[in-house]
């Protein structure tokens, strides 16, 4: 008998093959698909977050775990009615105008998906105007903006200002991250949050949507 702990451990180990196999076994054993995802696969990702914070696990570990989780989800997801999948909320994420550095942003995407968020990854070099347009289109709960340059981080400010002008600021939380960005800068531009790394970003989003981090 496979258990939810086993599949969680397969995620922690970053073992995609095992995660896939265990997901199938758990399905065959009749476990509810939602439990397999929420407790098994995401449970594993949560443990990865804890170990990352403790400097026991590192970026490649996180990526392997995300892959293992995805392999399990792939098996289980078709068995779930679309409406039954509960997401914690929708996060729209991009690097800001003029900024092409997306490694950090992509890690945040992985951690958010692992935490149970629906993520709209808008890519790199996204202008304030485009963000506003997309907010109208997708109605996300949170916007995450990333910048690696001191010159481009100013577009975070102009995006928040544009959201304000367009009357959208109260509908959405805005969080920021990236090497030159800090909590001070987040406060200065009236963002709702700042995170120094991908794991903390997932915790931050959970707090902002009212789910326990």
């Amino acid at each position, binding site marked *: 008998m496979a258990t939810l702990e086993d599949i969680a451990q397969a995620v922690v180990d970053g073992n995609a093959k095992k995660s896939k196999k265990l997901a199938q076994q758990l399905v065959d054993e009749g476990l509810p698909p939602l439990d397999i995802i929420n407790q098994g696969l995401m449970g594993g990702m949560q443990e990865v977050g804890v170990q990352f914070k403790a*400097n026991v696990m*590192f*970026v*490649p570990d996180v*990526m392997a775990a995300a892959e293992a989780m995805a392999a399990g989800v792939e098996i289980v997801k078709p068995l779930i009615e679309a409406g039954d999948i509960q997401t914690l909320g929708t996060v729209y994420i991009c690097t800001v105008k003029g900024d*092409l*550095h*997306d*490694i950090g942003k*992509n*890690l945040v995407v992985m951690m958010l998906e692992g935490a149970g968020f629906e993520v709209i990854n808008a890519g*790199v*070099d996204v202008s304030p105007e485009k963000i506003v347009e997309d907010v109208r289109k997708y109605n996300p709960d949170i916007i995450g903006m990333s910048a690696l*340059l*001191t*010159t*481009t981080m*100013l577009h975070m400010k102009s995006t928040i200002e544009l959201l304000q002008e367009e009357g959208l600021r109260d509908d959405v939380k805005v969080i920021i991250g990236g*090497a*030159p960005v800090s909590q001070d800068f987040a406060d200065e531009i009236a963002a709702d949050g700042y995170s120094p790394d991908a794991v903390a970003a997932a915790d931050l989003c959970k707090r902002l949507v009212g789910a326990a981090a």
Partner: protein
Amino acid sequence: MIIIGEKINGFIPKTLEAIQNRDDDYIREIAKKQADAGATYIDVCAGVEPDQEYEAMEWLIDLVQEVTDTPLCLDSPDPQVIVDMMPRANTVGCLNSISMEKNKCEVILPAIAGTDWKVVALTCDDTGIPDDPETKFKIAQQIMEKADEFGVAHDNILFDPLVTTLGTNQESMVSFIKTMQMIKDAFPEVHITSGLSNISYGLPYRKAINMQFLSLCMYNGMDSAIMDPMSQDMLAAMYATEALMGEDPFCKGYLTAFRNKLFGVKR
């Protein structure tokens, strides 16, 4: 090896603090130390918001030139700032950087045409930093077309094929070396450099990765690095590699550096 000393950069938190507090002594100290450690150029990047950049750059340039004759590497995301700072430099140096982004080539290349100024060229464009060697090489070709158009000598171009982080891409160095070789095959006179500490981002014990990356890339033709020359480990790796490659007769470079206490000293 062409060493571009990277310490005076506002993207380094400690340096940014010194820039914001206008800490003259700290900047003088890291300028002098990098020069003493054998930096070919001393990179100067303010890393502050654009409206404060000119003043910060001028302050940094003047301080560095107070303590050393080592040429500067003028570094800004804004090509106009770079060009505007050139007259302030006492000696011909290096510019950091051009790429196929926006008008960077058009602003910077005419300013160095026919001079001995060098320029770092990044293999990225407005669509981003490509992952594959082929696309990076295509961008390098476009940059070289611009260089020829404006009349910049190939020898004055230092290509940085933009290494990705090993933590997120395990083909990172292999791909870097392949790109570098494609560039060198097509344009034998250009130099290859790397802001190499990026490779170890997000991993523990970074210096192990940085040192081996430096050695392996040097062996494959890299002849410059944007690095911290005050790091004994990195300098030792560099001198040792040059000696191991048979490019250091009687190990003179390695031994002189050792005698000058550039490495092997307990601090």
